[in-house]
């Protein structure tokens, strides 16, 4: 598939366009200077991404060896070939995409340690073990999806009818997100309004602001005219009804009963309300229709011919003239070397830190400075979509303080009969380590046992599952690079800087760790600087 016309670069304009000017600034000074220039031109953006990059000038057949066929490697391969470079990509996995990966029914996966799982999901059902959502401000990812024809659909982050659950709150009975949010906002507003009316805040709030504050609390908290939050039509309009309004005879609603401020605060359930306040999780988010691997497949249609799969890099050596990667093919036992003028290495630092590479100490120290975080996801197939049919939950996420941490419902194929797959666990930190150390079947058994505390239907409806612990993924050895502030201060620039003929890219070379956008932006920045170096030797 060819890229759509709007992505083609414009080179025949008589006057330099604003974009030309920006791309020149970018080529000479790097993307941060370009961002500053954009800001001064009134284009202050939500993203470093400023549209398709232009790598002007003839690289005269210069060759680039790209290591790794994840988002960073594939974006770089696509753009460098378009700019006239000779490109070769080596990748460890049998499939392109790296952590941009989807497991479908019929797939077989063997983790480190040798346990093999056969995915038996029904046709069309899948699990994205890695990235699964794309926020609206990840403009690079969205633009490549658009240019490559990847269909997107909404990813539901907040579902007001999903559950919030804590073992020790409300006798372990899951609460609807809607009622927790209404009661929390109501309780906090009620308390603050009482403080204002008791003149407690007179030193902090001016007389002029006082009325506005009260009005805003009434609006924010769903308070009554007397600034109280209590059972009644106003609260029910937020938290829902015991008997919702209907039509015809006996259709009048019955109010639901609000939870006391003390119970709401003690429950701790308000913690989960903050998640969707974060910039990364604000509406709108997207997901590729059919699985995140649709992005990998779309890139592979463009540059799949450049990728050598099943290729394990064991050494990377540079001279004044070129860079050579030594590799083996674990599937055939074949050994070989590949040489190019330049090397863009996108191999995760969890692996690169073990590879013999002759870079100077600053880059080597940076490569060694980043621990890799755990991460674990479990996909569970059930005989029917009971969360829709019984609980009226269509997409979105339930949160719990059980080790599974969250249950995410499929954001597509609503109201379908037949089986469905949900994300039955997605913990971080200690729980992710502990899940990963278990055999896959035991991870799944525990996820079903814990999930049944929120959805009792689990026990009758569960069919089978698949469990991916990222520290056991052979091509990744971890979920993402977990930079500390201190390590970033000391090493980040050295990680990103060109060392002789070697440049690094990937989510680890970004300030958006674990997100595809970080990998994409780091790759675009790296090849922009590489191209500037090639054009002005």
């Amino acid at each position, binding site marked *: 598939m060819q890229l759509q016309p709007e992505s083609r670069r414009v080179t025949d304009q008589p006057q330099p366009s604003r974009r030309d000017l920006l791309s020149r600034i970018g080529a000479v000074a790097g993307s941060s200077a370009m961002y500053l220039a954009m800001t001064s031109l009134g284009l202050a953006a939500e993203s470093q991404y400023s549209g398709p990059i232009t790598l002007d000038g003839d690289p005269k057949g210069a060759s680039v060896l790209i290591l790794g066929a994840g988002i960073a490697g594939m974006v770089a391969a696509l753009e460098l070939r378009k700019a006239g470079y000779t490109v070769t990509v080596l990748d*460890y996995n049998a499939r392109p995409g790296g952590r941009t990966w989807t497991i479908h029914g019929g797939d077989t996966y063997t983790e*480190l*340690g040798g346990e093999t799982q056969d995915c038996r999901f029904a046709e069309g059902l899948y699990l994205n073990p890695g990235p699964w959502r794309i926020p609206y401000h990840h403009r690079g990812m969205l633009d490549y999806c658009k240019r490559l024809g990847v269909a997107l659909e909404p990813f539901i982050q907040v579902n007001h009818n999903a559950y919030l659950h804590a*073992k*020790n709150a409300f006798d372990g009975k899951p609460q609807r997100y809607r009622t927790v949010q209404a009661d929390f906002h109501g309780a906090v507003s009620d*308390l*603050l309004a*009482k*403080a204002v009316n*008791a003149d*407690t805040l007179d030193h902090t709030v001016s007389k002029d602001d006082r009325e506005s504050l009260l009005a805003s609390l009434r609006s924010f908290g769903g308070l009554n005219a007397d600034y109280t939050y209590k059972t009644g039509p106003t609260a029910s309009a937020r938290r829902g009804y015991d008997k919702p309004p209907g039509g015809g005879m006996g259709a009048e609603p019955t109010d639901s009963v609000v939870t006391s*401020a*003390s119970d709401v*605060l*003690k429950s*701790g359930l308000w913690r989960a309300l903050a998640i969707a306040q974060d910039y990364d999780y604000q509406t709108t988010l997207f997901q590729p229709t059919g699985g995140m691997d649709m992005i990998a497949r779309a890139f592979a249609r463009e540059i799949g011919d450049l990728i050598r799969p099943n290729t*394990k*890099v064991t050494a990377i050596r540079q001279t004044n003239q070129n860079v050579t990667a030594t590799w083996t093919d674990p599937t055939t036992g074949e050994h070989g070397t590949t040489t190019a003028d330049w090397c863009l290495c996108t*191999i995760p*630092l*969890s*692996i690169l*830190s*073990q*590879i013999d590479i002759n870079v100077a100490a600053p880059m080597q120290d940076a490569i*060694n400075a*980043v*621990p*890799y*975080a*755990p991460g674990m996801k479990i996909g569970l197939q059930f005989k029917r979509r009971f969360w829709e049919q019984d609980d009226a939950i269509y997409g979105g996420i339930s949160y719990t*303080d059980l*080790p599974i*941490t969250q249950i995410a419902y499929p954001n597509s194929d609503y109201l379908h009969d037949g089986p469905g797959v949900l994300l039955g666990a997605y*913990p*971080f*930190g*200690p*729980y992710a*380590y*502990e899940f*990963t*150390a278990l055999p896959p079947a035991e991870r799944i058994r*525990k996820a079903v046992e814990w999930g049944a505390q929120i959805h009792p239907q689990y026990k009758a409806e569960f069919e089978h599952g698949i469990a991916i*612990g990222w*520290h*056991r*993924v*052979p*091509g*990744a*050895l*971890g979920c993402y690079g*977990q930079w500390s502030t201190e390590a970033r201060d000391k090493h980040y620039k050295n990680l990103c800087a060109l060392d002789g003929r070697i440049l690094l890219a990937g989510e680890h070379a970004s300030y958006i760790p674990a997100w595809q956008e970080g990998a994409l932006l780091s790759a675009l920045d790296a090849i922009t600087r590489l191209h500037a170096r090639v054009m002005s030797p």
Partner: protein
Amino acid sequence: MSAVKLALKLAIALLLTPTLALAQQPDGSFSSPFRFGEPTGEAIYQNICAGCHMPDGRGATGAGAYPSLRQNPRLAATDYDIAIITRSQKAMPGFSRTLTERQIADVADYISKTFNTPLPESPK
């Protein structure tokens, strides 16, 4: 009681409420999202370290490798593994925030006793 005093009281009550539930598993696993609750070196190793170094300590190899801990001469120096578990080493995360010093000492002891002696089944 004024509203502000009530709010303060609630806040204090929340701070004092133990947020970490008691371990629900007999081996102390899955007891907290912030700290590991495993009480013994063996439980710590099998529930955390084994995720990468494998239950029998033999490590694993993919695009990169997790080193085997079996008869690993570097582990003969007891301070070596304690330092790594505490501070991190290359891609291996540090555990100073999630394990107590006692837990780290216990798991280092378990590793050296279990893996750094000749394998019972190995011909000597």
